[in-house]
């Protein structure tokens, strides 16, 4: 008998991909993500383009003339006579705010900013920094005057140190590689999370698809043409392809949005490609520290074994999805309604949720016993192992984990097929665990 999986698969795929909800979700998700990143930046740039003048009454005279205007914020010092007048008529005056510096500011370390509207965080920050630096300078001058050390300022500056820890990992051949915990953490987290989301979202989609066929009673018509196992696998694979399509579109849109966003955000210019930064740095001959850091990141990225990570990602992605979606399919076949599905859902969801919790600790301690065992147990390994891989996992552990996963998902697909075959034709009865066990041992 010629297999009809291809036909079933393409129906499962096309009906879902053409759904409005799929198209909207696929396009909206990156837009939402983009909005989350772009909007604040965009709003900030808009905010900054408003010119404003702040009236400054300096009772201490320390700061007189010392507050330099920035691009959009101007400072205008006012004499004492005008102070009350402006304070009373702040709303009608052209001033954005009134900054009041008391004579004893050096002791109180407090200034007042009076305004009729809400002061933006940026403005407050700017004023704070400016006053702080003026007062620090003032105090420094005082100290220099007292101690008589003329280059005190430079000396103090030279004591300021920042330390960055470059983690070096010794490879098997003994060569030292610069590795990065941060990059490992980010990659591990992202890959683990994608697998987690995929299992939950698309596994449940499989379950709903099975239930739809059962509830609408079309299933008996279909399995008089194809084997139940073919129907189940066609559905599982078809839905996997829906998910992959969505993932690929998100990646493409994500790249498009990121590159588009870079043009829009002035602040993001610093995050340009390494070459750009190198070029900028050379031209301007400044920011050598930044250049250094960039090269560090580049060398760390170079140390990440991307072919291995991507290969493993694809393997665990498919393996984890097959394992869970076959369980979801079995549950969908066993129940008549969504309410009845709950009792079977919990035992399936528990290991997935456990996996995401263990992942968080595995990222912090990728070599620990917890991380090891949960990356071998097949029900959690797709998520937990993915979180460990960017840090480097011994080959035997990886092989063992993969082998256990393969054996488990083959066994699970087989078992699910048996339950499914019986379940899709069972109506009316509320299925118990005992019943499921019986279906497992039915002869075909």
């Amino acid at each position, binding site marked *: *008998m010629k297999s009809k999986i291809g036909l079933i698969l393409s129906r499962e795929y096309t009906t879902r991909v053409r759904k409005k909800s799929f198209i909207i979700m696929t396009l909206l998700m990156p837009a939402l993500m983009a909005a989350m990143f772009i909007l604040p930046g965009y709003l900030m740039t808009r905010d900054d383009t408003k010119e404003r003048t702040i009236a400054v009454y300096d009772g201490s005279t320390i700061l007189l003339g010392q507050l330099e205007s920035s691009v959009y914020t101007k400072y205008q010092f006012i004499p004492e006579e005008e102070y009350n007048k402006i304070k009373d008529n702040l709303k009608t005056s052209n001033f954005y705010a009134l900054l009041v510096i008391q004579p004893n500011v050096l002791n109180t370390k407090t200034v007042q900013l009076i305004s009729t509207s809400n002061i933006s965080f940026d403005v407050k920050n700017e004023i704070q920094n400016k006053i702080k630096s003026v007062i620090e300078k003032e105090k420094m001058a005082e100290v220099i005057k007292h101690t008589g050390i003329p280059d005190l300022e430079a000396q103090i500056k030279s004591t300021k140190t920042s330390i960055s820890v470059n983690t070096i990992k010794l490879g098997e051949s003994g060569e030292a590689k610069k590795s990065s915990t941060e990059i490992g953490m980010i990659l591990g987290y992202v890959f683990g999370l994608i697998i987690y989301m995929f299992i939950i979202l698309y596994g449940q989609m499989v379950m709903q698809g099975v239930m739809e066929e059962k509830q609408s009673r079309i299933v008996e018509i279909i399995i008089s043409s194809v084997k139940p196992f073919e129907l189940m696998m066609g559905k599982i694979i078809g839905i996997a392809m829906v998910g992959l399509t969505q993932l690929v579109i998100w990646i493409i849109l994500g790249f498009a949005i990121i590159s588009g966003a870079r043009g829009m955000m002035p602040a993001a210019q610093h995050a340009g490609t390494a070459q750009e930064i190198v070029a900028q740095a050379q031209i301007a001959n400044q920011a050598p520290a930044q250049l250094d850091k960039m090269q560090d990141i580049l060398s760390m990225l170079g140390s990440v074994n991307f072919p291995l990570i991507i290969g493993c990602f694809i393997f665990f992605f498919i393996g984890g999805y097959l394992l869970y979606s076959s369980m979801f399919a079995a549950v969908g076949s066993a129940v008549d309604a969504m309410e009845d599905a709950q009792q079977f859902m919990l035992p399936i969801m528990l290991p997935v949720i456990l996996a995401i919790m263990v992942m968080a600790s595995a990222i912090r301690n990728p070599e620990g016993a917890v991380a090891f065992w949960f990356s071998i147990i097949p029900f959690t390994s797709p998520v937990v192992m993915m979180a460990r891989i960017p840090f480097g996992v011994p080959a035997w552990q990886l092989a063992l984990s993969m082998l256990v996963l393969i054996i488990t998902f083959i066994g699970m697909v087989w078992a699910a097929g048996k339950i499914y075959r019986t379940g899709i034709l069972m109506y009316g009865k509320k299925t118990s665990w005992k019943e499921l066990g019986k279906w497992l041992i039915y002869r075909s």
Partner: protein
Amino acid sequence: MDLFSAQEVTKTYSNFKALSEVSISVPEGTIFGLLGPNGAGKTTLIRIINQITAPDSGTIWFQGRKMKSDDIYRIGYLPEERGLYKKMKVGEQALYLGMLKGLSRRDAMRELKIWFEKFEIISWWDKKVMELSKGMQQKVQFICTVLHKPELMIFDEPFSGFDPINSEIMKEEILRMKKEGATIIFSTHNMESVEELCDHIALIDKSKKILDGPTMNIREKYKSNIFDVSYKGEFSKIEQDFGQKYSILSHDETGRTNSLKIQFLNGSSSGSLIKDLVKHVEIVSFNELIPSMNEVFIKVVKQNS
């Protein structure tokens, strides 16, 4: 020749016996009624024919050889509990089901066009199934069942959900397909349509076959020597004389001619009944009453319990 036969088929679900050594033979080009009370095992047998489940023991024959898995493409099955994908469009869905039965896209398209034009439902093609009424959905399902021109068609309660006009259309289609050589297994509780359509029947009760054969023979077999007589004369004369040999079931003296239903008891025959009758009255008509399938069904199933 038998197109299909099942030989001593047994099927057990955990501790429940659904079929117990059931054998049926379906001659080619006939309509075969598969009858039985609810839960007798009909659906199990139908599912075995469709290879949805496999029997524990017994053999299934198709066209004189053991049934192969490929044979399901030559069977069309309309289950009793049937449905379609609610959110899928009618045409697309019919095409999909046709292709699942082994038709190429082009062949399925061509056949669908013929059927949709015949039933004047071309305008439904792009409608979602959930926009159709139940009867309309049944029509689409009927088309999907016969689209691939199967040699064996299995209809389980095909007329449920149809109005009388559409029932008639379906009946005509089934008879036309029979005439064109198709073999049909027909399962229903509607005994009138069994009398009307079925050449052969088999009755299954409590997982066993308890009766089978040509429909007419079975009705003959279950006749109980009841005659419907119209006569001119007085009923009282008959009544006086007939007490010992015959049992009078009913009589009616209100019509143009009088009539009575009479059953003869042991050791009598229709010939002696006529002789006895003409002594007293003038016979206008004399008919033997053949039991309806409904009566046969009830009688046989009651006896079996």
